[in-house]
């Protein structure tokens, strides 16, 4: 028997066996390091999918969405989701400047999420609001013709117009009643709606400074506050 012709086979068998035995250690050593650390905030519709979000809102009706927070930061995180409500003219969070809305939060949801885990919170909400006519002063620029050989001048004219306004009373949020008194939304003839915007801003606890910081993420729901009680005239 010539042993040298089995040398290569013997080396290959030994090497494969050695690799098999070394695989548990190699598995831990040859791990591609994590380079991206981030958090996610998401909203899903009532069917747990990204569709059929509530849009046309009726006073007194209840709606359901699912709020999700996922953690890929490499360690357990302590989040707060600040719930805010605004109309068209009020401060909104800014994705470009990465700033939160300056409005006060109506409710703060504490959320703890372990690394590589996510938390889903069902959100049941409903608005109570009514409508009333309010007088608004509308300023328009009017060109007043000048005399013979003279140019016309532009003057600003103030007109009082009556507009319909949605006045909010409360927001029912997961069984809690949040006070919305002082919140209102005027009828917008350009967009044909009473605009409402429910915002969920993500804040994160910073252990170094011992307080929460805006985590530069938010999700929101835009609504048309319909006036079903007024015969549906203003339903967008």
């Amino acid at each position, binding site marked *: 028997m*010539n042993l040298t012709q089995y040398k290569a086979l013997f080396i290959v068998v030994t090497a494969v066996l050695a690799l098999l035995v*070394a*695989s548990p*250690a*190699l598995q831990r050593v040859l791990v591609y390091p994590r380079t991206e650390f981030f958090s996610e905030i998401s909203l899903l519709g009532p069917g747990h999918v990204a569709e059929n979000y509530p849009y046309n809102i009726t006073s007194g009706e209840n709606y359901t969405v699912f709020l999700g927070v996922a953690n890929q930061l490499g360690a*357990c995180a302590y989040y707060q989701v600040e719930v805010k409500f605004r109309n068209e003219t009020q401060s909104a969070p800014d994705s470009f400047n990465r700033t939160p809305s300056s409005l006060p939060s109506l409710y703060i949801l*504490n959320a703890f999420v372990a690394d590589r885990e996510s938390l889903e919170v069902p959100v049941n909400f409903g608005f109570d609001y009514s409508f009333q006519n309010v007088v608004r002063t509308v300023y328009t620029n009017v060109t007043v013709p000048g005399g013979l050989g003279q140019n016309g001048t532009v003057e600003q004219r103030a007109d009082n117009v009556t507009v319909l306004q949605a006045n909010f009373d409360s927001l029912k949020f997961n069984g809690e009643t949040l006070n919305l008194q002082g919140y209102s939304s005027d009828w917008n003839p350009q967009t044909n709606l009473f605009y409402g915007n429910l915002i969920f801003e993500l804040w994160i*606890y910073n252990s170094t400074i011992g307080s929460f910081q805006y985590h530069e993420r938010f999700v929101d729901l835009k609504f048309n506050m319909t006036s079903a009680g007024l015969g549906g005239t203003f339903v967008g």
Partner: protein
Amino acid sequence: MRVSLGVLLLAAISIAVLSVPSVVWAQQNSAASAISAAQSKLVQCYDAARAAESASANISQLTSRLNSAGLLLSRAELAYSNADFGSAQSLAVQSQSELASFVSDANSLQASAAQSRTFDFLLNIVGSVVGTVAVLVGGFVVWGFLKRKYGNDGGVQKSESDAV
């Protein structure tokens, strides 16, 4: 007699009216301090959960408890902002009691995770490295043995063929 009764009645009403704000103020104060204590407790427990997680412990149950306590705290803060100080205090206390023994649970989870991590290290890293070295050394030894045995036989065969 009638005058003194009137004075007494007036004094009683004055005391009652004046004591209402101080009772409310005391309630507000104790609700605020209960909320503040619940917030501190939540942060302390969060730190304990983080430490357990860094020792590779599965902290799903811990985060679940933290979320329950966090929900109670959210409700307490809402009640406080609605000037319902009694409910605010009660909810803040409930939030704290939800986290009773949390730190010790997290610490024991951390200790057992550290223990299983040591065992895992010994088995998978040390065991694997030692096993690999053993396979390689064993391979050399077996090769040497085979070489000595069959290498010599080959030599015998060679010398026989030479003789023929």
